[in-house]
């Protein structure tokens, strides 16, 4: 604290004699620096290049989206003040663009910039393109109205916009970054380390993976935030990250290791806030092939409903919560977080484990001596992922299922699911659109085209596929919710997923700072308040 005051003091002295003296002192009166650490840095500052959590989190401070996501998961106005489906044509979304918004370089933001940004975001090699695949045309009707025409009715399209940033068309053209950077081109794009957004902070220093400094943007349209300067430092080592908070070198730590939460809570001057993350952790299995490559069974045990029921009966979610997660998880039966559309309490309910019955079911399914299978597990992707898998191995052993655990790094694990080379695997899934359709599209629908890319179960049900596809264009939201409920019923009935829990997030900070947990793990430093 004293250091900060000193620095502002020096700055103020330097300005002495200048016309800005009065202003400088007015600014210094409530200048607050926030030093923020998390595990990894943003990969790039280009607004559309990467669809990745830490990248979006930092960019949300420099750039802005049309609509924002509040901590309760609801949509809030940002650069769009109003939005809705056109009354004349249900394939068109209409956005009213906020007036009086300026970019950091001083130029005014117009509907043209919005059109340019949405076009840039939906054109490969942009990482955001998949979210805008249904967009056919974006047009500026007048200075403050933008129309987005889609290939069909898309009642939830606006949900895809919460991480699509708006950039300046003139700036992009001036610097040759009209499209998102191309990995294969082999050249660094200007927009990777330079920014010009409309966001509440201006990037003043960027040393990738070392330090990024943001200063409050005086010309921002909203009320000035309490934090006037952000110093963002990635610290990859968990012990060092916690030590930096304890020694007072950082104010907020975003990725708190599960094992340190309890200790930090008991430390004077430190507090921990927690909340549910938008990510479920579950097991899934090949329930379609004739044989399993890694099993000693003659056929595919996972194809039999008895075996899938036995596995559900063997999973002791509360034990995993207490022992593996140290209480930091929300055990549930369905792979969707509680704030996602389509979630119900019944979906999440699960019974007590019953190993005797599970072993019986396995025997009844035709495996009196049980069977063996490999379980593929990542060991560096989710919270305690490998330990969760180890716990399951012990539990399934009691049902006479001999699991051989193969745990490896994420870059080796995920291609197994992509290439259908695993019989039984762990996967985590977040729902950025906050709607069940996202789960169905990628995990349940038959693998074809843009559907089913993470469907490692090989599950294919034409009736269900038709229902899933119909969700995309249903504008009657009540009827749509009814279809979602039907699909969930079938998915749960079939036991496509053996869900473990919803992950919890924890942020640690020094006393005197208030910051809520954001469900997408994208905290906004504009929401920080000081006591």
């Amino acid at each position, binding site marked *: 604290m004293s250091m900060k005051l000193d620095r502002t003091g020096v700055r103020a002295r330097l300005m002495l004699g200048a016309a800005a003296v009065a202003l400088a002192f007015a600014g210094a009166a409530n200048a607050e620096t926030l030093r923020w650490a998390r595990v990894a840095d943003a990969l790039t500052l280009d607004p559309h290049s990467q669809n990745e959590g830490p990248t979006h989190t930092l960019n949300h401070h420099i750039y802005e989206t049309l609509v924002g996501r509040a901590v309760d998961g609801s949509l809030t106005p940002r650069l769009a003040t109003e939005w809705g489906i056109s009354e004349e044509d249900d394939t068109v979304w209409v956005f009213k663009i906020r007036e009086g918004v300026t970019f950091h370089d001083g130029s005014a933001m117009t509907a043209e910039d919005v059109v340019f940004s949405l076009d840039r975001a939906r054109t490969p090699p942009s990482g955001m393109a998949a979210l805008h695949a249904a967009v056919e045309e974006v047009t500026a009707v007048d200075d403050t109205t933008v129309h987005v025409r889609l290939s069909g009715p898309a009642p939830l399209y606006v949900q895809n916009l919460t991480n699509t940033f708006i950039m300046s068309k003139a700036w992009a053209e001036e610097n040759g970054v009209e499209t998102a950077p191309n*990995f294969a*081109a082999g050249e660094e794009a200007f927009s990777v380390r330079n920014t010009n957004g409309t966001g509440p902070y201006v990037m003043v220093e960027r*040393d990738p993976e070392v330090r990024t400094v943001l200063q409050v943007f005086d010309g921002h349209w909203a009320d000035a935030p309490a934090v006037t300067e952000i110093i963002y430092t990635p610290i990859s080592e968990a012990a060092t990250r916690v030590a930096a908070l304890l020694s007072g070198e950082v104010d907020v730590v975003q990725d708190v290791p599960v094992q340190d939460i309890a200790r930090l809570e008991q430390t004077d001057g430190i507090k921990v806030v927690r909340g549910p993350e938008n990510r479920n952790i579950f097991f899934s299995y090949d329930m379609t092939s004739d044989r399993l490559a890694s099993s000693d069974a003659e056929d595919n045990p996972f194809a039999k409903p008895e075996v899938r029921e036995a596995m559900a009966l063997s999973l002791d979610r509360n034990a995993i919560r207490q022992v593996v997660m140290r209480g930091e998880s929300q055990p549930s039966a369905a792979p969707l977080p509680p704030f996602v559309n389509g979630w119900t309490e019944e979906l999440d309910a699960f019974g007590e484990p019953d190993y005797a019955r599970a072993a019986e079911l396995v025997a009844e399914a035709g495996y009196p001596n049980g069977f063996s299978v490999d379980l593929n597990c990542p060991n560096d992707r989710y919270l305690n992922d490998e330990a969760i898998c180890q716990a399951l191995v012990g539990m399934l052993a009691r049902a006479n299922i001999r699991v051989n655990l193969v745990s490896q790094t994420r870059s080796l694990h995920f291609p197994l699911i992509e290439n259908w080379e695993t019989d039984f695997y762990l996967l985590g899934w977040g729902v950025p659109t906050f709607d069940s359709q996202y789960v169905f599209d990628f995990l349940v629908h038959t693998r074809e085209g843009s559907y089913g890319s993470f469907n490692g179960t090989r599950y294919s049900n034409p009736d269900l596929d038709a229902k899933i596809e119909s969700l995309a264009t249903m504008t009657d939201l009540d009827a749509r919710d009814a279809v979602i409920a039907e699909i969930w019923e079938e998915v749960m009935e079939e036991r496509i997923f053996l869900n473990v829990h919803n992950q919890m997030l924890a942020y640690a900070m020094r006393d005197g700072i208030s910051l809520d947990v954001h469900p997408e793990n994208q905290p906004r430093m504009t929401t920080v308040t000081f006591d």
Partner: protein
Amino acid sequence: MLAFILRRVLQSVIVMLTVALVAFALFRFVGDPIASMVGQEATLAERMELREALGLNDPFIVQFFTFLSRAVVGDFGISYRLQQPVMELILSRLPATLELALVSGIAAFVFGVGFGVYTALRRGGWASSSIMTVSLIGVSLPTFLIGVLLIWVFAVELQWLPSFGRGDVVDLGGWWRTGFLTESGRMSMILPAITLGLYQMTLIMRLVRAEMLEVLRADYIKFARARGLSNRAVNFGHALKNTLVPVITITGLQLGSIIAFSIITETVFQWPGVGALFINSVRFVDVPVMAAYLMLIALVFVVINLIVDLLYYLVDPRLRLDRSAAGH
């Protein structure tokens, strides 16, 4: 002399090629970079397309020769992870690693020799015994643990030194950023330098002590004492001087290891050097950065070895005599 250098340079090139080949063979087992490069919404077709564009589907030999043909002109491509040119990325991180290696190398040498001489001369004293005991910790504790312990004591409990990072740096001519010129930069260097240099210091200390004990028993030391020379002249003028030849060799070779194995120290202290860059690249399967880093480390070792060989040639007259004798 020229033939000797040429032969060594040729050998070095072969070593570099071998390292590149082995590294490339290993990358096939690190995993698939595509998953980390595209969002989870990307279709399988898009993933295949990117893989094709990056040449990841090409046969191993084709990939290797594409890499080599670009590498010889200094083009290591662009980082998959940070989207910056690899060469620029490594050069911007190298000063941090070299400064840390230099400080810990010098500290290890100075303290290693000092403690080595002291424990050799004062055998059995309580100070010597405790130095010897503490040095055992230096060789037996893993670097990671030493780093975390130091952070805990000096950053969290005592709050004397920073726990992470490099502090403020000063840009020298746009291509070298130094931490030596600022207070916070110098303070930041202390803990990582101790962590990195502790093992080397212990090694040098034990080497010096053993050599000293050996030399102190030699006849010429006895004669020196008999001539009535002062203890100081005997111990430092004669004994220490004769122990330093192997010590300098070892220190030189260890300098390569300090640069190459700073990975753990850099990770623990979030030190923005090439070691931390490498670890982050491995996690992301950032093949261009991994390849360039391994080539760089190979180059460091090759160059140091070359210099050491040349020094032998210059320092040890017998090497030269033998050769000229053979010529007659």
